[in-house]
C-alpha cells in the first residue's frame, strides 16, 4: 500500500490504510445509527483524517469533486427559486384533471409527474412540491392518500435514475467518469421507462378497491383552477427560460466544452439576476440571502467530508485492495461482476445511504479498468452502479432521503407510512425493478 506524494506522515507511525479504514468505518457506522447529523460526522471524519496525517490539506481539497458540489448547488438554487412561482402545483393539478380526476388515473398521472420532475430536479424537492398538492387532491376525492404517497416515493427514485441530474449517485458517477447528460439519457432512460410501466401494473391489483370516489368529489377536483396556482407569472417565464437554457447546456455540454457545474451555477446566477432585476439593494440582499439559505448545505457539506474520507481510502490503497477482493469473489468475470454490482448496490442501498456507497464504489470500479481492458470496457459497470444505487433506495423507508421526507409529510397529514408495511410491498417492487434492469443489462451490454 502506498501513500500519495505530498501526504504528511501518519501520527505514531500508524498505517495510513488502517487509520483511513477505521475512520471511514466509524463514520459509516455512526451515519447508519442516525444519532448525529451526517454532515457533522463526515466533516469530523475528514478533519481527523488530515489531523492524523493520512492526507494533508492540499490532498484533501484535491479529493473534493467540485463538479458534483457545484452541479447540486446550482440546481438547488434554480429549483428553489422556480418553486416560488407555483409552476409545479400547476403541473400536478393539470395532470389530475387530464384524467377527469378518476382516482386510479390521478395516481398514475401524479406518479408520472413525480418521475418526470425527479428526472429534472432533485428527488427531495420534487416530493416536497408534489406531495402537498397530492394531499389536497386526495382530501377532496375522499380517497386514502397512502397509495399515492407510496407511488410518489417509488417514482421519485425511479425518475431520478433516468438522467445525469436526477439523483446524486448519477451526478457523482457522471462527474467522476466524464459522462454527459446525453450518455445517461441514451443508456438509462429507456430502461427507466420500462421500470415505470412494470411498477405501475401492481397498483391495479393491490389498491383497485380503495381507489373509488363519488362523482361530486371528482367534480370538486375538476373545479380546481390550475391557472390560479401560478402565483408569479413573471418569475415563471424567467425560470422556464433559464431551465430550458440549462438543459440545452447539459445536452450540448460535450460540444460547448463546459462541465455541468459551470452550466448549473451560471444558470442559477442568471435566474437570481432576473429575479432581482429592478429591485433596490435591500430587497436584493434579502431575496438573495433567502435563495442561498434554501440550498441544502447539510447535503453539500456531507459530500465535502465524504469525498475527503474516500480520497483517504483511495490514496492509502484501501480501495484498490477492496476492488481486488470483489474481483476475486467474481473470479474476474466481467458479466458476473457487473450483475453483482447491480444487485449488490440495490440491496445495500435499500438499507444504507447510497451516497457514501457510490462514493466508495467509484474509485473501486475505476481501479478495475486494467483487468477488463481499459476505461471504455467499464461503461456497463457505471450503468449497473447507477441503476442499483438509485432504484435500491425504493426498498425500504430509509433507503433514500425522499422516502423519509414523504413519510414525514404523511405523518403530519395523519396518514403515517410505517417501515414494515412499506417494506413488505415496496421491497418486492424494488426487486422487480432491478430484475427488469438485469434483463436490460444482459440484452444491451453483456
Amino acid at each position, binding site marked *: 500500500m502506498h501513500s500519495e506524494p505530498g501526504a504528511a506522515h501518519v501520527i505514531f507511525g500508524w498505517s495510513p490504510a488502517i487509520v483511513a479504514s477505521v475512520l471511514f468505518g466509524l463514520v459509516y457506522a455512526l451515519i447508519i445509527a442516525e444519532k448525529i447529523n451526517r454532515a457533522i460526522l463526515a466533516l469530523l471524519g475528514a478533519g481527523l483524517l488530515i489531523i492524523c496525517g493520512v492526507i494533508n490539506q492540499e490532498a484533501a481539497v484535491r479529493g473534493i469533486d467540485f463538479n458534483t458540489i457545484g452541479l447540486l448547488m446550482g440546481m438547488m438554487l434554480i429549483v428553489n427559486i422556480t418553486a416560488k412561482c407555483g409552476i409545479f402545483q400547476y403541473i400536478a393539478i393539470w395532470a389530475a384533471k387530464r384524467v377527469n380526476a378518476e382516482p386510479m388515473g390521478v395516481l398514475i398521472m401524479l406518479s408520472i409527474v413525480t418521475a418526470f420532475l425527479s428526472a429534472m430536479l432533485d428527488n427531495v424537492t420534487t416530493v416536497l412540491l408534489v406531495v402537498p398538492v397530492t394531499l389536497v387532491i386526495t*382530501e377532496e376525492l375522499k380517497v386514502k392518500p397512502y397509495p399515492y404517497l407510496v407511488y410518489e416515493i417509488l417514482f421519485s427514485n425511479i425518475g431520478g435514475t433516468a438522467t445525469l441530474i436526477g439523483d446524486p449517485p448519477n451526478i457523482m458517477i457522471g462527474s467522476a467518469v466524464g459522462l454527459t447528460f446525453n450518455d445517461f439519457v441514451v443508456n438509462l432512460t429507456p430502461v427507466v421507462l420500462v421500470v415505470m410501466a412494470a411498477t405501475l401494473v401492481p397498483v391495479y391489483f393491490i389498491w383497485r378497491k380503495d381507489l373509488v370516489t363519488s362523482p361530486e368529489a371528482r367534480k370538486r377536483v375538476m373545479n380546481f*383552477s*390550475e391557472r390560479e396556482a401560478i402565483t408569479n407569472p413573471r418569475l415563471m417565464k424567467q425560470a422556464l427560460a433559464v431551465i430550458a437554457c440549462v438543459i440545452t447546456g447539459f445536452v450540448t455540454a460535450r460540444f460547448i466544452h463546459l462541465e455541468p457545474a459551470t452550466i448549473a451555477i451560471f444558470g442559477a446566477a442568471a435566474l437570481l439576476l432576473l429575479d432581482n432585476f429592478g429591485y433596490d439593494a435591500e430587497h436584493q440582499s434579502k431575496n438573495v440571502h433567502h435563495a442561498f439559505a434554501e440550498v441544502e448545505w447539510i447535503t453539500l457539506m456531507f459530500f465535502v467530508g465524504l469525498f475527503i474520507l474516500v480520497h483517504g481510502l483511495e490514496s492509502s490503497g484501501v480501495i484498490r485492495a477492496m476492488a481486488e477482493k470483489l474481483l476475486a469473489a467474481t473470479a474476474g468475470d466481467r458479466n458476473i461482476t457487473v450483475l453483482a454490482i447491480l444487485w449488490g448496490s440495490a440491496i445495500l442501498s435499500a438499507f444504507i445511504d447510497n451516497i457514501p456507497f457510490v462514493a466508495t464504489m467509484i474509485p473501486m470500479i475505476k481501479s478495475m479498468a486494467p483487468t477488463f481492458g481499459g476505461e471504455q470496457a467499464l461503461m456497463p459497470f457505471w450503468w449497473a452502479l447507477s441503476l442499483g444505487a438509485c432504484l435500491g433506495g425504493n426498498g425500504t423507508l430509509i433507503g433514500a432521503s425522499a422516502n423519509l421526507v414523504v413519510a414525514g409529510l404523511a405523518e403530519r*397529514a395523519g396518514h403515517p407510512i410505517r417501515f414494515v408495511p412499506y417494506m413488505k410491498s415496496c421491497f418486492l417492487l424494488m426487486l422487480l425493478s432491478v430484475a427488469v434492469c438485469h434483463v436490460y443489462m444482459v440484452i444491451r451490454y453483456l
Partner: protein
Amino acid sequence: MTAKTIMNAAPVTLSMHDTFGQAFHLLMEMRVRGLPVVELDGHYRGMFDLYDIWEVLLPKAALFNHKSVEDLTFLSSNAEALQEKLADAWDRPISDFLDDDHSPSICPDSPVIEAVLQLYKHGGNLPVVDSKSGKLLGIMSPWEILARVRG
C-alpha cells in the same frame, strides 16, 4: 405589576369532554379568540382557539410549514364544502383539536412585560398557569393589560 395582579381570575373555561361544536358556539357567542381548556381538577390542558377552527377548514397540506401549498386560490371551495368539514368535526371532543403551538402560558409571578412579549408573539389571550400544580389560575386579555398600562 405581575401577571396575577392583572389577570381575570374567574374565566370561562371548556372541559376536555366538550365537543368541537359546543366550543365553536361559545367562541361565537362570546366573540373571543380562544378559551382555556381544563380538566375537572382544574389542570390546564391548552387553549381552544380560532386556529383550531381554521385548521379544520383548511386542507391538511396547507398547514405544513415549508414549501407546502402557500396559496389556495386554485381551490375554489364553496360554503357547502366548508360546512361539510365543520360538520365532520362537530361531535368530536375538543381534546382531539388541542394544539399548544399557538398558546403559550405564563406564570403568575411573571412581570407584565413578559405577558406583553407573549401577546406580541402569539396574540390572543394568555392563560396564567401555576408552574408547580399545572392548574389554571386565570386569563390575561390584551384589554386588561392595556387598561392597566393606560392607568
